[in-house]
């Protein structure tokens, strides 16, 4: 083989490797059964380019075909998405959490903030039906996304994402990780971790694109029937069965004018009514906490970087100043003072995170209903009310 051929092959391999690193946003490693997607950081070479590519890919997605009957009615290709409030992997020991840079109040707030960011990202693609942030799982949701915050310290965000449709088909089970540098905080209009959510949106769309029209239609149908099964198992069990993989499949469909189905559909709309009302609270929270949260993450990132640099300096152990000199004292104490001041700022910001949830007041058939407690409790109360209504309407079978 000539040198020229070898050179070309080498160049091609290099190019391919580079492109792969950019388009898949860094090496994707597998931890156990869960794949980790590392979104390129701003400091890596080619990272900004890769991030732009991801954002452009999202923008370039072709609009989904709209329903032939009416443009206001969504097409079968558009699935409704429910994003559950994220969970958190942290333990419950507050002192231990602070050691890791985790502030419980902030973590609680970001379990609501980050799902909303994902919601905004998905909505911007126009590839989905209604995208809702939900306090708890809902049987009639066509695609449910749940997440767990594993690391969030302003420098790194790592979340585990699980997405399943109404048939319980697994769409995604991945860990997404992104590190950012100081430049990511320069533009306050864009979230520093937006590339992670862009990547996630693209992955969801990739799974969506693989489904056939009949599979998408089945997802819609299964969502309603599974909700019906929850309310009236005896009536709806006949329409559903599970296969070997534990996924729901349609056995048969109820008649279009089935009165039971109509009631179920009406109650489902009530359930969405609650979720949409709660969603307004999440929207308000998102807007309110954005500037404070951004500042908090920026401070937190600076602290992480400074501490790492400090540790690195300690390895070398040479400050350059004579031991016992004023300069050496100022440097040693200055490091500590900076750390303490930064922690004070973080504490002050963290104290501002108000997670109080207001009571939700809903108007149901001319009755005003007030739901109290946290949103999960409120949702549970609402579901119980709907079940009671259903039982009353249905009467004894």
């Amino acid at each position: 083989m000539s040198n020229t051929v070898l050179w070309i092959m080498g160049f091609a391999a290099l190019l391919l490797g580079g492109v792969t690193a950019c388009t898949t946003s860094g090496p994707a490693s597998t931890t156990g059964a869960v794949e980790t997607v590392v979104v390129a950081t701003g400091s890596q070479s080619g990272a900004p380019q890769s991030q732009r590519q991801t954002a452009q890919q999202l923008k370039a997605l072709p609009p989904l075909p709209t329903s032939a009957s009416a443009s206001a009615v969504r097409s079968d290709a558009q699935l409704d998405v429910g994003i559950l409030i994220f969970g958190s992997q942290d333990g419950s020991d507050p002192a231990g959490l602070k050691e890791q840079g985790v502030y419980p109040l902030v973590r609680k707030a970001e379990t609501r903030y980050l799902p909303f960011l994902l919601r905004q990202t998905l909505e911007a693609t126009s590839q989905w039906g209604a995208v809702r942030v939900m306090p708890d799982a809902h049987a009639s949701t066509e695609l449910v996304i749940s997440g767990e915050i594993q690391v969030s310290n302003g420098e790194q965000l790592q979340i585990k994402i699980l997405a399943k449709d109404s048939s319980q088909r697994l769409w995604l089970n991945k860990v997404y990780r992104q590190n950012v540098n100081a430049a990511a905080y320069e533009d306050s209009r864009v979230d520093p971790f937006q590339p992670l959510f862009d990547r996630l949106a693209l992955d969801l769309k990739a799974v969506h694109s693989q489904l056939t029209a009949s599979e998408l239609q089945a997802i819609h149908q299964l969502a309603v029937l599974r909700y019906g099964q929850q309310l009236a198992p005896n009536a709806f069990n006949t329409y559903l069965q599970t296969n070997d993989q534990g996924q729901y499949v349609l056995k048969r469909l109820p008649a279009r004018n089935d009165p039971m189905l109509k009631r179920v559909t009406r109650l489902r709309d009530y359930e969405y009514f609650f979720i949409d009302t709660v969603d307004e609270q999440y929207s308000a929270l998102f807007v309110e906490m954005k500037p404070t949260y951004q500042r908090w993450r920026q401070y937190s990132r600076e602290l992480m970087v400074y501490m790492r640099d400090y540790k690195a300096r300690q390895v070398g152990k040479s400050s350059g100043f004579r031991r016992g000199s004023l300069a050496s004292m100022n440097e040693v104490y200055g490091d500590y003072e900076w750390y303490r001041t930064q922690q004070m700022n973080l504490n002050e910001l963290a104290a501002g995170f108000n997670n109080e949830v207001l009571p939700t007041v809903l108007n149901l058939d001319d009755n005003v209903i007030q739901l109290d407690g946290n949103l999960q409790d409120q949702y549970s109360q609402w579901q119980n009310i709907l079940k009671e209504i259903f039982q009353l309407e249905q009467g004894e079978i």
Partner: protein
Amino acid sequence: MSKYPFHLRTSVFLLMGLMFLAGCQNSPRGEVKARDAKRHDFSGSWEMDFSLNDSVDAKLDAYFYRLRRSMARQANGRQMESNRMSPINQRTAQTVVAMAQFVEKISRVQVMDIAQTVTDIDVTREGTFALKCHFPSRGLQQSDNPFATEVCGWDGHQLVFQLRLPEGLVVQQRLTLSANGQQINVATTMYSDQAPEPFTLNRSYSKFEKRRQGYSCEQTVEKGKVCTLTSEAEDERMVPQAPKPVIMNAD
């Protein structure tokens, strides 16, 4: 008569003395041995009373005088006889002056606000970080962070905050309440492994009733930092006299 010659006995004696001193050197500098806690109530607002403060120059003079005396004693009184003081090593002198400058710098805090409960104390200091201590049990509490080891707690009726920093530095702050409860003495002591003795500077603080006039700020999510202007008269009308917190000795 001893079977050993005089110079050998002297050498052994000196060697033992040196070993004793070396043993002292090896014990951690500024180690606090906590006496039983007799917790005093430090809570309130405190402002520096300049008239009662130590003079840095006077403390430095006294330090060097003590050092020369000690060196002279070590030199077996030869310099005393010849009426000359031992010269202090230049590097040591530089370190001591640096310690004095440094202690003076970190003890410039003019106003402190202290909040205290049975298990915690929070000393908010103007212009620098707050000193916090959680003391649920007996003895001193120790915590580590990448920049220092922090030790705090009660040593009898005194509250001690100690920072063990890299480069052989220890900074200690010891708070003592006066008998009438109207003064706090903050003794800031610095230890360095490059200096023969620690350097201490005392700062005195008098209790004062903070006028509730001016800006009161709090961090909110919605509007960031929100500051409101309050007036004394308004506060007096609105806020009933809060009962004085009772600090109990848990130990």
